[in-house]
Structures are given as structure tokens and as C-alpha cells.
């Protein structure tokens, strides 16, 4: 049958440890005791159907909403009960679902906002880094964020998150609503961020094919519980994953 739920066999140094996390929206329970690990330098993806609780888990890591049970440990520090801005201060950056760039502010100002917590001395260097990674943003640096195309907005959201020099980057469905070619570019960029910058990446995706191909390890979430886990390659080959998330055409 499927791959058994394994306890992170190739985990080196833990970066993020999620243990028995339960999250509620009012009386409705969205997560039922989720265990998950992300090791330093890894790309870990979380896939699942609509409403499985993927985004909820990512948001819970950010402290909004807060977990009602269980613990979230970042680099050995319990962050379960911290407010979002305190969690972000500890080196977590988030690319939220739907990108959420600041539409009336220019590309440059959006990136400035990303550097809110950063050291001003790094600003120019970090800006160049983002512009090298996404030359399109350099071309449009004075354009208002809201007038960018969907792909450019996604690049901006990722660039903005990188401006704070995060140790852990959380991405929520970066491929949402983008053309296949752009999706490929975005995933390439994510791979580069992990390999070249050494940023640990936790990626929530519906586009299981791309996500699993990129990731070192993956988790499958269904109805608020971790259903499967394994290396990206294993999950791609898994019959259950294929049937549920990959058949019916992928990008």
C-alpha cells in the first residue's frame, strides 16, 4: 500500500518542529494533531486537496491563528504562543497566499517594506540580490505593485520576503493562478534560493507535481492530518498520491 508515515529519516539539524498541533477556527477544528519537521537547508513541501488545512498549518506556524494544542519549535525555541511579528523577528519570512503585495506602493517601496526588520547596511546588497534573481523587478522598480502581472507580483512577494534575510522561508501556493511557464520560473527561483542562499524552505502547494519534484521531502495532508510522508521522489511514485493529486494532467 502507501508509504508509511516516517519520522524524517534524513533530517540533519532541525529547523522547525511541529508536534501535535491542533488549530481551530472558532468551534471548527482545522488541524488534528499534525507532526512535521523541516531540517536546516531542506526544501519541504506540504501538499493536499482544497480545505485539507495546508494554509492553516502554514499560518499557524506564523502564529495567526495560534495553535490550541501542541507545540511549534523554531531552532530549539518554542514559538507557539508568540505574536506573528515576534515570530518573523526570529528569522521566518512568509510569502502569503494570494501574494498580498502592497498594490498602491511601488515595487521598490514593497521591497523596502520587506527590509523592515533587516539591517539598513545590508539593504543595497539585498536589493541587488533580489534584482539579480528577478530582473523583471529591476525593470519595474518604480511601477506600482498593483499594476504588475500575476507572475511579477509573485516574484515581488518572494523578493519582499527575502529582503529580511530569513533563515526559514514559508511559501503558500506560489503557483496559484499562474501560467505554466511562469510556474516553472517561480519553482526554479525557489530551488536557487535554497541551494545558493542556504535558506530553508517550507512550501505549501496544490501543484503536487512541481512541488514534489523540487522538494527534498514532502508531506500529504488530508482532513487536517498528515496522511503520508517521504522523500519527494517516493511520493511522486506513490500510487495513492498519483491517483489523488497527480492524475488528470499536471503543469
Amino acid at each position, binding site marked *: 500500500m502507501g508509504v508509511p508515515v516516517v519520522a524524517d529519516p534524513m533530517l540533519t539539524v532541525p529547523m522547525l518542529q511541529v508536534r501535535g498541533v491542533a488549530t481551530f477556527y472558532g468551534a471548527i477544528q482545522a488541524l488534528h494533531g499534525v507532526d512535521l519537521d523541516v531540517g536546516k537547508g531542506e526544501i519541504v513541501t506540504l501538499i493536499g486537496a482544497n480545505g485539507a488545512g495546508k494554509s492553516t498549518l502554514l499560518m499557524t506556524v*506564523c502564529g495567526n491563528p495560534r495553535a490550541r494544542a501542541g507545540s511549534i519549535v523554531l531552532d530549539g525555541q518554542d514559538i507557539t504562543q508568540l505574536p506573528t*511579528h515576534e515570530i518573523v523577528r526570529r528569522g521566518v519570512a512568509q510569502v502569503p497566499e494570494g501574494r498580498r503585495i502592497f498594490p498602491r506602493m511601488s515595487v521598490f517601496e514593497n521591497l523596502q517594506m*520587506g527590509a*523592515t526588520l533587516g539591517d539598513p547596511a545590508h539593504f543595497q546588497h539585498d536589493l541587488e540580490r533580489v534584482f539579480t534573481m528577478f530582473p523583471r523587478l529591476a525593470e519595474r522598480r*518604480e511601477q506600482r505593485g498593483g499594476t504588475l502581472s500575476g507572475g511579477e507580483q509573485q516574484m515581488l512577494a518572494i523578493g519582499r520576503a527575502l529582503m529580511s534575510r530569513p533563515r526559514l522561508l514559508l511559501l503558500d501556493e506560489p503557483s496559484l493562478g499562474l501560467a505554466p511557464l511562469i510556474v516553472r520560473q517561480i519553482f526554479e527561483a525557489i530551488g536557487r534560493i535554497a541551494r545558493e542562499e542556504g535558506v530553508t524552505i517550507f512550501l505549501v502547494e496544490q501543484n503536487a507535481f512541481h512541488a514534489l519534484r523540487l522538494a527534498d521531502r514532502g508531506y500529504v495532508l488530508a482532513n487536517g492530518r498528515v496522511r503520508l510522508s517521504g522523500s519527494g521522489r517516493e511520493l511522486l511514485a506513490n500510487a495513492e498520491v498519483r491517483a489523488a493529486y497527480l492524475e488528470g494532467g499536471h503543469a
Partner: protein
Amino acid sequence: MRDPRLPNMPGTSMLKDAALTALVAAALGIFIVGFRTVDVGSRTGLAFDYHFADLGVAIVVIFLGRLGLSLAAMGLRWPAIALGVAMIAAGASPMKLPSGFLHWFVALGGVLLVIRAVWPWADQAIHAAARTPTGRVVDKIGTEWVGRGLGWVLLGLAVVMPFTPFADQKTMDLGVLILTYVMLGWGLNIVVGLAGLLDLGYVAFYAVGAYAYALLSTQHGLGFWAVLPLAGMFAATFGILLGFPVLRLRGDYLAIVTLGFGEIIRLVIINWYDFTNGPAGIGSIPGPTLFGAVFAETAPAGGQTVSEMLGIPFHGIHRLIFLYYIILLLALVTNIFTQRMRRLPVGRAWEALREDETACKALGINPTNTKLTAFAVGAMFAGFAGSFFAAKQRFISPESFTFIESAIILSIVVLGGMGSQIGVVLAAVLLIGLPEWFRELGNYRMLAFGLAMVLIMVYRPRGLIGHREPSIRLHPVASGGSG
């Protein structure tokens, strides 16, 4: 030759449409224009004064106007123009109408109709002209002029205004009034325009500033310049006190709570009789001094008047000119402070918060603190303006701090284009200045005010100056580029 894309409407339905419009106008107008009550003395009290001729003329004008608009919309320009010209002629003719205003009303209707009929041609001509190389340059100069030059021009006008021949008592009074609202508009712009927090109780901080000066000066003998910073601090403190519990609310909920707060402050002022003198207000508040000298005909014991100090004969307008420059200075300080803040991280955070609070949290911004600073800074400027108001009026009472004041200040910010500094100036001139200048219109004044508001919201839904200037320009704008 008709454009086939335009709507085709047979003549009968056009007449029907115009008649229906006239009927609606009649139904509404009968109460507003048709009759009004007049006081006929103590015996019978009120009586009706009928104005059916006014109403009749208005209905005829509306009927013809609607007909003309339908004609113009169908592309039948010449009939529409003819109708408009006829109305202008009727308005200008010595025809006997109950009031002079109706002549204007008829003629103005005709002018609007002609403009509407000619508009497509003018529009075409403008577009054609904009495509020529000269047109492009003019267009570019136009936008840049509004962006930068206009502010300096207005500032220059404001500075020299007291020395022009127009500077009589009435104009100076109006100038001080407009500048007070410009300052309040700029202050509220920080809260509403930049931080995106809808504050309907802004006048509360204005009241705090005014009462701070009134009480400290009349009871403790402190001067205007000593109290000014204190008033700002008091108001900012109140801003934080209010902000702390309510800033977790958003949008409409925040608006309601701030509205309530504004009323609470007013009610406390009315009812805390021992402290604030209640509804009777506080009188004989000293005016601001110039290096210790007072603006008065005779100096108090041991003091000096400004005319003695400068060796010029006394004139009542000197005080007004002095007040004018104080409020101009205070308003400029507000503006410059805001412009500086926009370039600092906290100012950027305000704007980002307005755009997307969730994204802000994800970037490590503490939304509560950021909102609190916006609230406190906005309140501080209202406090400055309030103590100026008390020093100018020399008498304050709770009646000066009603909800309508908050509403006017908010209208100035919204009408100006949220977050636009120059827009606030234009809107303040429009909203405060025009109603004063048009006092001759009498009862129609508020009608004109409403019409202006509706027109602005229809044609400029984002406010007079709706676009946002980036806080930083990275490259100097290339001059004479290919466009």
C-alpha cells in the same frame, strides 16, 4: 449623420423620459422650493410663503434640460445646442421672473447643455491635440506642474496674500479659517489617508487642544507659545488612550467607536461643569503674543502692544495677519512633518498597513504600535490646531466641537484624495471657501455644496488628486523623452 453606436430613442419616449424627470423634480421640489415657513410675529406664529413660480420655472428648466441631454446622448448635437442657446437667451432676457437667481439658473442650465452637446467634439480635439508632439510636451508639463509646481505656487500665494489689496477683514478671516481646516485635514490625513484608519471622532483631539489652552491660560496664566507643545502632548496622550483599546477593530467598527469617543469628549466637556464651565464655555482667552507683546489697542499693566514695539499705528487687522501667519506656519509644520515621516520606516509602515494588514504582520511589523503612532501623531496636530482655535476665537464652548466638524474634516480628506497633501488644500478651499464666498446664494448655497460633492464623486471617485506619489523617486524624470 448619426453614429450607429449611439442609443436610438424615438421622440415620444424622449418626451416621456423628460416628463418623468420633471415629475420627480416637482415632487422633490415642492417641499424644498415650493413653500417655506415665515415668522409672521407673535400672534399667529408661522405662515406659509408660496413660491410656485420658482418651482414652475425650475421644472420647465429640468424638463428642457433632460430633453436636451437625451438629444445630445443620441448624437443630435445641433438640436441640443439650439435648445441650450435658447435657454441662455431666456435667462439673459429681461423676462419677468420672481428672483434674479432664476435668471442665472435658466442660463446656467443652457450653458451646461451646450457644453454637454459640444463635449464629444472637444474631447476629440483634445485627444487629437494630445497625439501631436507639442501636445505630448504640454501634457507632460501639465501633470508635472500639478505634481510639484502647484504646491509652491499655492504656498507663494498664501505667503503674499496679506499684502495684496484683497486682504480685508473678511478675506483674512476666511484665510485663517481655510488654513485651520487645511491643517486639520493634513493631520487627519495621517490617520485616514496614510494609515487607513477611519476616524470619525477627530474633533475630540481638536477639543482637547482647545480646552488645554483655554484652561491653562485663563487659570494658570500660561502663554500661547508655552501651551502649544503641551496641548499637542495632551491631545497625543488622548489619542493613545483611545487608540489602545479600539485599534484592534477595523473599518466600520473602528469608525463607530471613534465616533462614540468624539461624542464622549464633548459630553464630558458639557457636564463637567466645575472644570470646563460646561455649556457656557470659557471666555476672555488671551490671544497669542509676538515676543511678549500683545495685539491690542492698550497694553495690560507692565506689558507692551505690538504697535508700540514696532512703532506703527494700531490697526485691528494686524492681529488677524499675525494669526494668519501662525496658522500658515503650523499647517506647514504639519505638512513637512508628514512628508518626512512618509520617507521613514514608520511612515512607510503606515501606508503598508492601509494596504494590507495581514501582509504587514507577515513582514514583522507590529500593527498595534504602528497604528498607535499614527493615531497619536494625528491627534497631536489636532491639539495644536485646537489651541490655535481657542487663541483666535478667545471664547470656546462645546458647540464648536460637534460631530459635523469631524465630518467636514473627513470630507476634506476624502474629497482631496486620501493621502494627497495638495488635494487636502484644494478640498479645503472648495469646502470651506466656496460656501463662504457663495453666501449671496442664500438658501441655494447648501444645494450648490451638495451638487459640487456629487459631481466630484462622480467624476473623480478617488478624490481630486487620486494618484499617490511614491515616497522616493529613484531616477530623475527624463526630460523631453519620447513619451
